[in-house]
């Protein structure tokens, strides 16, 4: 069985060579190797070309461009002549950090991430453990039900949640009314609008965490758990001492990807409250989008970059916190 990565030439030579180490010693002439390698490289570039062309124009170019844009005074008036702008250094960033509205947006984003991220991870992990270890019947029903919100369109979800939360005709306040509680006007109340977004985010994302954790749980060797049981470890100990450490890599991955998504907290306030009431649900990315809408392309890019830096910081922090402690 020839296992070298060379091309179709020099076949006879390799077939005669027998086991792999011998084959490796008997490499064909440099000329042959060069053409085989060359053919492979050419094929690779042909295969890569369509993706890379699209990637360069619609991803890499915009990334670089927005860096530059955040250092200029690009406005919507420059839409047709985007190169005809002046360089202004870090003015946009300075202006950003002097804007109390942006600080408020950053604070809302921080509250959202700090509340929604642990809640989503904990709920997803708990659901996965309950489904994997706790019950035997109807697993698929629970799995599908918990996952269903993940695949939904946020626009459709917003319509449904808005009617659910209607102060007088909505289901939530009706149910609260059965217990004699007079529910608030959820989305119009500065105290409740952001918590509602947090609950919505947990509702929409715990299914993703659950699925990844379920896959992780299935990779925990049964023999290890049995050995721990024989050694007298209770269910609680078995989970925290055996299962949880083995889940750590999967947990890290979900924490990072969910964190990246949550720092870009946008959809829920955009479709539910437009950042209100009184900017209480205005997020950093929604702030950037509103600047874009007002024609301040430069400030919008700068705000986007601040979020990017925060994402990198949170990712590094999570790798530090959840990495295996050897």
């Amino acid at each position, binding site marked *: 069985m020839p296992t070298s990565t060379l091309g179709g030439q020099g076949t006879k030579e390799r077939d005669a060579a027998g086991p792999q180490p011998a084959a490796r010693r008997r490499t064909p002439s440099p000329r042959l190797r060069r053409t085989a390698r060359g053919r492979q490289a050419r094929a690779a570039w042909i295969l890569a070309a369509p993706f890379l062309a699209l990637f360069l124009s619609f991803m890499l170019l915009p990334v670089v461009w927005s860096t530059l844009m955040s250092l200029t005074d690009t406005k919507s008036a420059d839409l047709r002549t985007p190169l005809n702008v002046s360089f202004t250094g870090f003015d946009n960033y300075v202006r950003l950090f002097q804007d109390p509205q942006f600080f408020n947006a950053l604070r809302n984003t921080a509250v959202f991430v700090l509340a929604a991220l642990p809640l989503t991870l904990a709920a997803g992990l708990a659901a996965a453990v309950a489904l994997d270890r706790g019950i035997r019947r109807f697993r698929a029903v*629970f799995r599908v039900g918990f996952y269903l919100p993940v695949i939904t369109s946020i626009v459709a979800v917003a319509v449904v949640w808005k009617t659910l939360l209607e102060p007088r005709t909505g289901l939530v306040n009706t149910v609260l009314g059965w217990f004699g509680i007079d529910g608030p006007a959820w989305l119009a109340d500065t105290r409740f609008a952001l918590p509602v977004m947090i609950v919505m985010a947990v509702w929409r994302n715990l299914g993703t965490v659950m699925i990844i954790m379920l896959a992780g749980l299935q990779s925990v060797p049964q023999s290890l758990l049995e050995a721990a049981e024989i050694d007298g470890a209770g269910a609680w100990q078995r989970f925290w001492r055996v299962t949880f450490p083995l889940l750590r890599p999967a947990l890290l991955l979900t924490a990072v990807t969910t964190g990246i998504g949550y720092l870009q907290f946008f959809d829920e306030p955009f479709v539910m409250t437009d950042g209100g009431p009184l900017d209480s649900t205005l997020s950093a990315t929604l702030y950037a989008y509103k600047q874009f809408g007002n024609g301040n392309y430069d400030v919008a890019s700068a705000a986007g970059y601040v979020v990017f830096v925060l994402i990198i910081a949170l990712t590094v922090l999570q790798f530090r916190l959840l990495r295996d402690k050897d």
Partner: protein
Amino acid sequence: MTTAASAARTRSATDKVLRRRRIRQEWGRPWLYLPLTGLLLLMVTPFLWMLSGAFKPEADIRKIPPDLIPTRPTLANYRELLGTLDFTTMFANSVIVALAVTAGNLLFCSMLGYALAKLEFRGQRAVFTVVIATLMVPGLVTFVPLYVLVSNMQLTGSLLGLILPFLATPFGVFLMRQFISTLPDELIDAARVDGCRELAIFWKIILPLTRPALATLAIITFLSSWNNFLWPLVVAQNESQYTLPVGLALASSGQDFTRFGILLAGAVIVLLPVSIFFLLFQRHFVAGIATTGLK
């Protein structure tokens, strides 16, 4: 006498233990079903509420307290929805855009994924690193320049403007590369020995073997395109290019948010196809998310 009675007692005690063990084996921990059912109810309540509202006459939606189950079920909301908005066009646009984006991603991502996983070329590492690093870039960083770019390409007035920026996504490359790496090298070497050309190896040997990964990528891409709303909302300039979420977002935004019945019917139309799709293909779906850790 007494021995027989105690024997019977022991037997019933062992029966009880055995029964408990059997329940445990078949059901797991019975008490867990209570919190899990409670959570399930919370998770699906919005869907049930939507279905209930979408089949109620507008007057009943305003009723205080609301009916949990429609007392006078009606299709009036759907009829009015189809009459007022050009829903057929929006539905067609959503399907066209999602199919085009899915086809592009399947082809381009598997091509690059194969090159990165199995071929040797200069700059391989750099290409992989740069493509994967962009997974961290927030959508809003690229949003503004992308808008300037697409509007200068005169694409804001056509469906192409909704398709082109999403044709090749880094996530797809990651997924395909991970999957193709697990295929045996011997397969490719044997084909080379048999004189198969490099591109034919990809097309005739690798691609058919990647079907499970392609299915996963297809489902994920189709769904994210179907649900995508911000870009089409900004780029689509007239009703002939609206996708379903755009139509629903515009109908439900601001002061017009009064006709709950119609909006809920619209939400049903947006959610129903993907929900059915998900229920049918959930196996592929779950497999893909579990292996890549991304959605």
